[in-house]
């Protein structure tokens, strides 16, 4: 893949923290919306987040630790 999409998204990223209505930001955003390469790149970023989320499924806190908290604080 050409570095095009990465470069655009990276620049956009730096602007996103600023005012979204800035001309440069608006221009970049419009480009991303209409560029298949940028869209495909963004999809791979989304997929990355989903995969990491799947790999970090929620777990239950150990009951023994909760019991220890209650014991230390004399709550029971």
């Amino acid at each position, binding site marked *: 893949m050409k*570095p095009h999409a990465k470069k655009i998204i*990276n620049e956009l990223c730096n602007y996103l*923290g600023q005012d979204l209505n800035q001309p440069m930001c608006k221009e970049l955003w419009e480009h991303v919306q209409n560029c298949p390469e940028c869209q495909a790149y963004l999809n791979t970023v989304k997929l990355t987040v989903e995969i990491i989320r799947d*790999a970090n499924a929620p777990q239950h*806190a*150990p009951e023994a*630790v909760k019991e220890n908290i209650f014991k230390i*604080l004399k709550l029971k």
Partner: protein
Amino acid sequence: MDNVNVKELVKQAKKGDKEAFTQLVHLYSDRVYNLALRILKNPDDAADVLQETFLAVYEKIHTFDGRADFFTWLYRIATNFSLMRLRKKKRTVLADEDLEREFDSPDQVEISEWQQVPLKGMLSEEFQKHLDEAVDSLPDIYKSVFILRDLENLSIKETSRILGITESNVKIRLKRARMYLREKLAGYMSELVKENNS
């Protein structure tokens, strides 16, 4: 979680009601534990953070003024304990410049090849390890934003309050963290594609 109920529990806990505090521990311990586990990647450390957090909350609950949500306040304490513990560990963390360099490197795998490798739902132990290392190598300021926003599903506003940074900073750090992780994953995929083709 019922907000009014939590407010009442916090109110009672501040007055020293032990039963109310016990209920708060039951309500939030899973979330505190998961947050710590995601930051520290170690169940024993996460368990220690869980305990430290609620002991600190018990001691300081009289200082909670109710201006922020109790949850935000609690998460801030848990995040700080987790990050303090993380900093004590010897690990390789990237500098900001390294993160930037990742974005500039040529892509190691074609986007079309992402569809060829069935990544979702196929988490091998090796792949899981690779992902953990990638997240762990993020500088703390990026890692904490990524975990709170993308793994804990908190809003930009909540994340900014917990970390004490502006919402703009949350957005910038989040985008950089996501792009960096994407590049790391692309690197791993490149190895998978090569293996498949050999």
